[in-house]
Every structure is written in structure tokens, then in C-alpha cells.
């Protein structure tokens, strides 16, 4: 028999994977493109509502809605990028923060207007709500799938960045934007695609998050905090750093709520402070 700590570790890992999906795009835009996009979780929330609407109003199966959540968030984000964000790539941090936090407030209001302020639950099929018992510890099927999916995506991201020509172009543009342009690389387009991919993953994360943390219009603000914690603890622009930070923070949050309920949601902040004092640039910091 396994002790209950394994159940806590498992739930923490699943929560961490969710945080990773929500934050990896933010880490890339902040660390590589030097753009502070506080509206990142608004795109995640959009993905969540796409899944809710497709399932409840059109009767789509859950898994069929996930690619739509990804694509919707990616497309809308690239629209914002082309229309607003790219004008501020060279602007001050404050300008970027003001623009994107404004978009967050607008997205919260629009979501409340269209979908109401209450939680929107999902009607998942029975097999996704079931759990497997292994050596006395219950493993929820949904969380198993979530972990597997996140691991696959991480692998695809790391391999894609390291071994594809597009990945090499992203790294070249980050290393030396001027030289990349001088060789004929369309840096604007490369960054726009990267940005869309990151937002798409956030949209996917938003859709997967509903079953675990719920979905209401405040999502865009509430989870912005967690995403920023993951990005800063992980190290800007580092995919593996975000991955490690998301796991550590996910597990400590779940463990904190389970073992020290009095401390509850505060443990994640203590862990953040401790990790940043230990490594101010993040677990795997670039700069």
C-alpha cells in the first residue's frame, strides 16, 4: 500500500501541468520577445469558454473542443498582436503593462456580460470522472490524461525548438534580431507565430483547467498571478524552467492545502519567495 502522500503528489503534479500549459507561452513572449503580456490568461479564459459553449450549446464531445480552444485563442491573440502589441514591442514596460492590463479588464467585463459571473461547470462523460485505484491510492482518470497531454506537449515544444528549422529561426531571431533580418528571416512573422502558439497553449490550458479549478470571468486575473509566479520562478524564456517551476509550485500548493489548511493558499507564495531568494534569475534563468 502506498501512503496518501502519493495522492497529494499526483494531484500536485496534475495541477502543476495545468500551470505549465497556462504559463509557457507567457514565458516565451516575456523572455524571448521582451513583451509583457498580462492578457495571457485572457486568451486562456477564451479557450475555456470555447470549450464550455461548444459542449453545452452544440453538444460537442470534450476532446473535440480542445483543438478549437487552442485555435481560437491562437487566432484571437495574433489579431491582438498584429493590431496592438507589435506597436509596443519597443515601448516601455509601463506602456506594455497598461495596454495589456486594460485588455484583461475588458476581457473580464466581456466574459461577465456574455456568460454571466457564475462558474460554468462541464458535463464530462462518466469515464473521465472515474478514477483508477492502484495500491490503495486513487488516481483520477482526468488528471492522468492531463499529465500525459502536458508531457507530450512539453516534449514537442522542446524538440520543436531544438530540432526544427522554425525553432532555429526563433532562436536566431532571439539571439540577434538585426542579423536574422539581414539574412532574410521574417522576424515579425516568426514572432507572431511563436506568440500564437503560446496563446494557443494557454487556450488549451484554459479548457483543461475548467474541470480542476473552474471557470468564471475572474479567471483572467486570478490565474495571471499564478502564471507570473511560474514564469519568474522558472526563469524568463526557459521552457524547461517553466516546467520545473510549475511542478514545484503545483505540488507545494496542493500539499499546502492538504497538510496545512490554516496556511492554505499562502504556501505557494512562501515557496516563491524562497526559490527567488535562492535563485533570483529563476531556476533556469537566461539573464
Amino acid at each position: 500500500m502506498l501512503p496518501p502522500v502519493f495522492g497529494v503528489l499526483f494531484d500536485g503534479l496534475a495541477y502543476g501541468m495545468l500551470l505549465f500549459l497556462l504559463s509557457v507561452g507567457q514565458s516565451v513572449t516575456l523572455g524571448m520577445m521582451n513583451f509583457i503580456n498580462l492578457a495571457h490568461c485572457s486568451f486562456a479564459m477564451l479557450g475555456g469558454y470555447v470549450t464550455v459553449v461548444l459542449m453545452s450549446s452544440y453538444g460537442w464531445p470534450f476532446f473535440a473542443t480542445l483543438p478549437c480552444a487552442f485555435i481560437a485563442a491562437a487566432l484571437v491573440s495574433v489579431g491582438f498582436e498584429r493590431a496592438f502589441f507589435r506597436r509596443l514591442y519597443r515601448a516601455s514596460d509601463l506602456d506594455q503593462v497598461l495596454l495589456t492590463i486594460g485588455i484583461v479588464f475588458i476581457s473580464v467585463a466581456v466574459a461577465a456580460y456574455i456568460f454571466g459571473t457564475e462558474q460554468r461547470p462541464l458535463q464530462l462523460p462518466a469515464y473521465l470522472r472515474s478514477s483508477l485505484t492502484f495500491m490503495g491510492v486513487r488516481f483520477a482518470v482526468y488528471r492522468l490524461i492531463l499529465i500525459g497531454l502536458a508531457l507530450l506537449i512539453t516534449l514537442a515544444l522542446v524538440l520543436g525548438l531544438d530540432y526544427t528549422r522554425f525553432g532555429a529561426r526563433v532562436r536566431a531571431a532571439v539571439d540577434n534580431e538585426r542579423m536574422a533580418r539581414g539574412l532574410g528571416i521574417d522576424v515579425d512573422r516568426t514572432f507572431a507565430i511563436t506568440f500564437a502558439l503560446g496563446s494557443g497553449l494557454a487556450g488549451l490550458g484554459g479548457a483543461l483547467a475548467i474541470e480542476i479549478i473552474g471557470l468564471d470571468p475572474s479567471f483572467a486575473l486570478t490565474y495571471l498571478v499564478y502564471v507570473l509566479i511560474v514564469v519568474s520562478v522558472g526563469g524568463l524564456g526557459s521552457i524547461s524552467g517553466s516546467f520545473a517551476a510549475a511542478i514545484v509550485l503545483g505540488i507545494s500548493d496542493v500539499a499546502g492545502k492538504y497538510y496545512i489548511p490554516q496556511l492554505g493558499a499562502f504556501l505557494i507564495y512562501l515557496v516563491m519567495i524562497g526559490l527567488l531568494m535562492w535563485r533570483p534569475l529563476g531556476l533556469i534563468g537566461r539573464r
Partner: protein
Amino acid sequence: MIEPLLALEDVRAGYGSAVVLDGVSLALPERGGLAVLGRNGVGKTTLLLTIMGYTRVGRGRILWRGEDITQRPPHRRALAGIGWVAQEREVFPSLSVEENLTVAARGGRWNLAAVYDLFPRLAERRRNLGNQLSGGEQQMLAIARALMTNPALLLLDEPLEGLAPIVVEELAAAIRRMTSEGANAFILVEQHADIALALTQDALVLERGRVIHSGGSAELLADHAALDRLIGLRLAEAS
């Protein structure tokens, strides 16, 4: 009259409000090399950056095969066939040697096999990262990387600067080999005036952002008095 590959017409260019080049005109044929000489800080690098599209052009036009490209962004000039080897080499540190070569490669006669044949040392270091190379190897990589885009015009910004004499010889030989086949035009900005003049057909001397001399390279190389007067170079000292 044959249309030039690249033409600058009375170009004034600089950075922000500072003017570095003024009234520069030149016409470059489809083949052959142009040496750009002059003392430090006279605008040689700015001339190349202006051709690439990195400066602010206040007056005049830049024509590529007769088409006005004055307002075209740098990456589209590169795609049109201008290859750039920057003064600081600027290899991508987080890409391997081979990735540096392939990241922007476009089809043509310069492929991996051809550039490895020209610079065998790069083949030995193909798995190394860009920041693990010596200065000479970085310069070879910068040239090879530009060749991989198969440019119609290659801009070389002081490719021999700061290298050990033996590496200078090796690189000069490679440039000679690369250009003697005459497949593309090139502009060579260089402090080593003797080497640059030996590699090119035409020469141009800049002084305070203006063209003060334009003519054949061989004539200028033979005219020591003119060289001394134009760029303060005494070949006896330099060689």
C-alpha cells in the same frame, strides 16, 4: 546601356538625425567586385548598412535591378539577393555551426557541401555552438552563412579585421576562390587596402561620408602616391 545590379543615386543616409553618408552615388555591374576604402569612421560600414536597409535614408534612391528598394525592409532585401557579412560577424551563439548555415539557407549552388569544401574547418566544427568558435572560424561561418542564402550581391564588412596573419591569408584565399568564379557581385569594405584592391576590379574611396575617388583597383594599387593621399596608407609599411 546594361542595367546595373545595384545603384545608389545621390544617397544621404544616417542614424536618427545624424547624417553619415551624403551624396553617394555608385553603380555596380552583375559581376565583379568593388573595394570600399577609407580611414576609420568615414562611413564605409554605414554604406553597407544603407544598402541592407538599416539606416535612415533622407535623400536619394537605392535601385536593385532597376527597382526602387529605398523603403524596403532588410529581410526583403536579403530575400531579393543581397547577402550581408557584418563587421562583428554576429554568428548566432545558441545555434550550432550547421544550424547557423541552414537557418536562412536558400537554394542555389552554395549548399552545405560547397561551403564545407570552401571552409573545411567549419565541417570539423559543425556540431559546435556559434559561441565556441575562434575569431577566424566565426568569420568563416559569417561568410559561409551569407553564401548559403545564394546572394547575387555579397557585402563583406572588414572580413579580415582583427585576425592573425595566417588566418588573414587563409580567408583572403577563400574570398579569392569564392569570387574568382564570378558567380556573384561583391562589395568589400577593408582596412587592408592592398588585399582588397588585389581582390577587386573597381575601387571607391570615402572621406567624411562622400566619395572622393572612384576608379579601377589595379590603377589605384599601382599608384602609391594616390593611396597615401587618399587613405594615408604607405604600402611599404603595411606589407
